């Protein structure tokens, strides 16, 4: 069952809504209503108390007057004399009735003559006759009150003078005061509400103005129209907002300039790397060819040092050739036009495994391929991604374990898949989990490779709008995870909890999602 207070609270909250304007108006109206009600109630109560006191004093005064003037008449049981006394007060305004009774309740004098010689027999009258012999208020109601004073002779009460006065006029005055009070209260509520509306309108107009300016700022529009004579607090807010907007616009401009410069620089660098790699390949090929020619023709005909030197030249030129190929690959991944299509991941894995066939055969590795989805990617890049990750697993195999690589996939965020390449190799310490994705970073200098493979992998994943990370522990193998967009919308209901919105990944590109896990 809803409590009345809770119901009122609910109604008020519903009426107030969430806008400052309605809350302010409701609040002001409520405060006016409560305060004015308290004020009117206090005023009416005081007026009632005053009128009642005044009526009581008047009735008691008249009763005492009658009592004093009635002594000898009561003793003489003189109806005529008492009638004169009663008549003298009966003409007072608002006197309902006046009477003199003796100790037995017999009416000796009365403003209504038929009552004379009868007896008052009601409980109030009996209470008066049996009560203390002192002047007092006998009965009081909204419309009348009666006071009585004892008629004494030598300390003995021989009768009572009773005067009843009409209080209907007072009641009417109080009702009028209450009615006027209600009108004043309603007026105060109306005036207060109008003022509150006016104030709220001014306040919210300025706030709305600032809100529109914020929206324009969000849309990238500049220029905020100044408010017209806003209140001090709003003016402070406006100044702060204008300062903030100016700072944001200035920073945005600076950032844009930095981005443009950075993009130009990156493009130059990539172009330089590509050109440099391409141009280096020709002389390197000559160096390698002639070094190999020297090795073939003069191997064993010179001294041992010369043979070693020639061998070093041949190995160096081979490594440089691989390095340049990788650099070219890296550069191609940066420069190539994005034109992703639906590629079956299983097909890409199959191609990668074919490329790695020799290494797989040599190591005796077991490759497990789960059910893989169709991804929105470029085929060469996806093949290269799997080839790098699987090759990495073979390269950093545990010396005492037969390499085992498992490729699985499961839904990630809506429209994305999360693929995992799990191996049972050497694993990697936590502090190196990010370092391995940097270009030319090699944790084992003795290991084969250029240190570009995982950098290429991350670049490929970033281009797809996904992210790449590793979970591994030394000696316990590694799991390379990467996310990639599905070619068709994959089970949205199976989205993994805690995943970031895929759209932002797509929109943010490589930089925003480059953070490692």
């Amino acid at each position, binding site marked *: 069952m809803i409590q009345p*207070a809770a119901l009122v609270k609910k109604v008020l909250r519903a009426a107030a809504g969430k806008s400052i304007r309605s809350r302010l108006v409701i609040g002001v109206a409520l405060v006016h209503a*409560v305060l004015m009600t308290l004020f009117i109630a206090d005023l*009416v*109560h005081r007026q009632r108390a005053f009128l009642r006191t005044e009526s009581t004093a008047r009735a008691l005064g008249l009763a005492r007057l009658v009592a004093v003037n009635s002594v000898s008449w009561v003793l003489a049981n003189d109806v005529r004399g008492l009638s004169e006394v009663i008549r003298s007060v009966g003409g007072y305004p608002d006197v309902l009735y006046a009477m003199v009774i003796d100790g037995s309740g017999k009416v000796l004098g009365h403003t209504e003559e038929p*009552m004379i010689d009868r007896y008052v027999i009601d409980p109030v009258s009996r209470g008066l006759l049996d009560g203390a012999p002192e002047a007092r208020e006998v009965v009081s109601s909204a419309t009348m009150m009666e006071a009585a004073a004892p008629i004494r002779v030598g300390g003995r009460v021989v009768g009572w003078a009773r005067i009843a006065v009409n209080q209907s006029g007072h009641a009417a005055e109080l009702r009028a005061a209450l009615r006027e009070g209600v009108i004043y209260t309603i007026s105060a509520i109306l005036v207060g509400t109008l003022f509150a509306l006016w104030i709220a309108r001014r306040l919210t107009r300025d706030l709305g103005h600032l809100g529109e300016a914020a929206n324009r700022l969000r849309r990238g529009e500049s220029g905020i129209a100044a408010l017209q004579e806003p209140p001090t607090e709003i003016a402070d807010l406006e100044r702060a907002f204008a300062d903030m907007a100016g700072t944001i616009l200035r920073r945005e401009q600076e950032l844009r300039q930095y981005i443009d410069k950075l993009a130009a620089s990156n493009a130059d660098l990539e172009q330089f790397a590509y050109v440099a790699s391409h141009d280096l390949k020709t002389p390197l090929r000559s160096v390698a060819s002639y070094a190999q020619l020297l090795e073939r023709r003069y191997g064993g005909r010179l001294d041992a040092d010369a043979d070693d030197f020639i061998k070093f030249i041949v190995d160096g030129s081979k490594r440089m050739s691989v390095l340049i190929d990788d650099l070219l690959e890296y550069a191609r991944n940066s420069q190539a036009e994005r034109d992703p299509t639906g590629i079956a991941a299983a097909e890409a894995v199959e191609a990668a495994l074919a490329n790695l066939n020799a290494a797989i055969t040599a190591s005796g590795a077991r490759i497990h391929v789960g059910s893989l989805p169709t991804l929105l990617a470029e085929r060469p890049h996806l093949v290269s991604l799997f080839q790098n990750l699987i090759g990495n697993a073979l390269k950093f195999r545990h010396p005492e374990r037969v390499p085992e690589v498992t490729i699985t996939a499961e839904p990630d965020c809506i429209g994305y898949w999360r693929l995992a390449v799990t191996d049972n190799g050497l694993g990697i310490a936590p502090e190196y989990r990010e370092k391995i994705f940097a270009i030319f970073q090699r944790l084992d200098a003795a290991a084969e490779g250029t240190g570009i493979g995982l950098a290429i992998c991350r670049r490929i994943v970033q281009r797809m709008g996904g992210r790449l990370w590793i979970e591994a522990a030394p000696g316990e193998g590694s799991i390379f995870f990467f996310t990639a967009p599905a070619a068709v919308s994959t089970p949205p209901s199976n989205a993994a909890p805690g995943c970031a919105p895929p759209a932002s990944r797509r929109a943010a590109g490589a930089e925003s999602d480059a953070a490692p896990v």
Partner: protein
Amino acid sequence: MTTAWWTKLAAAAVLSLAWACDDGDQPEYRPTYGERPAAGQQVYRFGIHPLHNPETLFEVYQPLIDHLNAHLGGPKLELEASRSYAAYEDKLYGRHFAFALPNSLQIVRSLDHGYRVFGKLDDDREFRGICLVRRDSTIHSVAGLKGKEVSYPAPSALAATMLPQAFFFENGLDPRTDIVNRYVGSQESSILTVYLGRVAAGCTWPPPWIKFQRDNPEKAAQLTVKWETRSLPHNGFVVRDDVPEDVARKVADLLFGLQDSPEGRALLDRVPASRFVPADAAAYEPTRQFVDWFTATLRKPEEP
């Protein structure tokens, strides 16, 4: 705080409004009237002729009534004064009183209205008229009053008016022609009038004069009793013929035994009286004869 501030404020406002609108402690009241008192008890009104003003009469006689009520054991007597002889006689002759202590003249007349005499004050010598003059007065004989003003309480006051006028007549001064009679309404007024020198002499009877001497010794010292009249049977008690005999007898027994106890003697002193004694209508035959003579010789008692 479990209740919101506005809830408390609103509750206070509503309560205060109810407080302001609370405009009546009791419903409309009008007394209820009946033909008999709520606490039914037989009441017998005891009327004493206006020896004094009502307040003084009440002070003097109410203790006696209280004493009777305390010993009657059932019926209740209620003292009733009268503001004038005329009012008293109206009530007496209208059978308003169950018991009464009228003066002698009224006793004689009440017999014709269903009352019977059952007792009287024993001090007949005290039932006489006295005439006061100022000590500095130059009047030394009744004849000296000729052409002067004389005050009396009322025309029908037997001891204070009729006996002095009869006394003047018997001493050669016709009250109808030789003096100016001033009826001033009460015994005390008659005394005060002569004290103030407005009249040459003022007539009254012993009890009011004794009381005046006690209450106003300085004023009384300036007055002197110049003449005293003959006496008649003192005031007595009558009872209306419809009062139960046992009640009348109880009241009579209590009155006649007052002198036997200190409390009773104190009550008699207030009257003042030495005792109350049984009496009947025959005891007031001298009074009847005097009234008849007075009426035949001077005037009707009710007429000035």
